[in-house]
């Protein structure tokens, strides 16, 4: 595995791409460009102690000395990160955790809801670069510029659905899944998913019912991001004990964890 390092990084670009959502491009001197889709980083928000803790963000894309992130403003920390300007500098600790493992010969279907797109975007880019075929189902409340961007980037591979029917199917991502699978030619499927907890539960149950392997990426409040505080515990399924989202995850096989 890649050694975890704390990169003193510089903002190369930061663009508002949707209501409250920024695309942040960082320069990380010394970063060798290696990370797995699903891995994340801990961003140090500022130099004073308010806020004190770093904030976890999925790697959206990366290459030698570069990383990109999608930052949605939901509170104090994310707002401060989203408002960073070109040439601002801060620390990025990573890459952290365990990402998606794509070693099967099954056809990957990526199911994302809302900001859950971030790690799956990276996965899709990786699959593209490996010239692998795959599909993305992206669910959102309502047609959005972020949806546009996903469609524009991954083109025909993307099925957009909206809760309110303002674009594509009027459905949730999971709701659209069943019909989608019936209509494709691939029979051996693997599901990769990230999104709100309710969605991850549905996907997990769907996988069990249809005997399709599912990998999910979880979110939990984090203290350290490196497995030492036990703040981000998640219960094991069918056996006792806990796993940490930050070190054992954030990506788990659906049968590993009880959510």
């Amino acid at each position, binding site marked *: 595995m890649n*050694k*975890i390092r*704390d990169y003193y990084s510089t903002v190369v670009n930061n663009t508002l791409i949707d209501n409250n959502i920024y695309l942040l491009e960082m320069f990380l001197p010394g970063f060798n460009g290696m990370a797995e889709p699903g891995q994340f980083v801990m961003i*140090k928000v500022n130099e004073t*102690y*308010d*806020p*004190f*803790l*770093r904030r976890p963000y999925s790697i959206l894309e990366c290459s030698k000395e570069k990383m990109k992130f999608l930052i949605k403003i939901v509170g104090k920390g994310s707002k401060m990160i989203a408002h960073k300007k070109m040439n601002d500098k801060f*620390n990025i*600790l990573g890459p952290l955790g365990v990402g998606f493992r794509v070693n099967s010969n099954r056809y990957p279907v990526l199911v994302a809801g809302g900001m859950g797109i971030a790690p799956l975007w990276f996965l899709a880019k990786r699959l593209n670069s490996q010239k692998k075929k795959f599909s993305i189902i992206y669910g959102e409340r309502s047609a959005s510029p972020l949806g546009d961007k996903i469609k524009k980037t991954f083109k025909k591979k993307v099925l957009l659905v909206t809760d309110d029917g303002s674009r594509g199917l009027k459905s949730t991502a999971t709701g659209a899944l069943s019909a989608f699978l019936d209509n494709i030619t691939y029979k051996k499927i693997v599901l990769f998913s990230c999104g709100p907890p309710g969605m991850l539960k549905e996907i997990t149950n769907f996988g069990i019912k249809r005997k399709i392997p599912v990998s999910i990426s979880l979110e*939990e*409040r*984090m*203290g*350290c*991001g*490196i*497995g*030492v*505080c*036990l*703040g*981000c*515990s*998640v*219960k094991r399924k069918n056996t*006792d*004990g*806990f796993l940490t989202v930050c*070190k054992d995850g954030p990506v788990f096989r659906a049968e590993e964890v009880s959510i």
Partner: protein
Amino acid sequence: MKVDLTTNIGSLKFKNPVLTASGTFGYGLLMNEIFEISELGGIITKSITLSKREGNPVPRIAETACGILNSIGLENKGIDNFFSEILPEIRKLKTNIIASIAGETEHEYGSLAERLDKYVNAFEVNISCPNVKKGGMSFGQDLTSTKRVVKKVREKTSLPLIVKLTPNVTKVEDFGKMSEDNGANAISLVNTYKGLSIDVKRRKSKLGGFTGGLSGPAIKPLALYAVWKIARNVNIPVIGCGGISDFTDAIEFFMAGASLIEVGSATFRDPDASLSILEGIRNFLETEGIKNIKEIIGVIDEN
């Protein structure tokens, strides 16, 4: 100039006074992938209990102004797992290993000390965890219970015995004295301050365990006061802890009377915080022309 940073607790020698606080550094194994932890004076393990504990429901961490509320609830895999999985690995680390132990009864503390006796370098007796229903802070808030636990552990081990106090009491100095009188070789403090944080939209505590313990820079002035109070009231070494995030913080604790310090939450913000603090201390002493750290311990007093 070479600065002398060594210090002792009872017979145990520390190459420097920087330790990592229980529950904020795991067992050191994961941390060792990030930096060379044998540089440190010692590490204190996550508190070990006899049986495994699941801990409290998530969320377990809530941020407050310059502080962290946690309600982990002593999640750990229990002493058997510690022996089979962890001990073989951490014994390879070239630094002092201090086992933090936590029980629900004085006998549990005794058994933990008895079983671990030969395998670690010292004990830190956690009678101050605010996040468990039984044991924990309830021992540390009652002088008689404090006495009973310390006595019991003392009976079972001859290793250096550190008692970790809670600041959630009227007169913390009484607890220091009581521990010393019953065989403690050092006092460490503070454990976290009991706190609460509410999500006003959901009308619920931000923590799954409802209340939590506050740590981080927010508590530093309170912890420093508690350490100063204790240091004047006992004749054994005091280990200062609470919000130490940079080397100046550490120096403040030494000047208030701490012989060693523990770095806690700062590790969450900077994984190598303990190492930077150690380097900062060394630098400060060099710059100020102080040859031995003992020269600054307890130098301040009422104006």
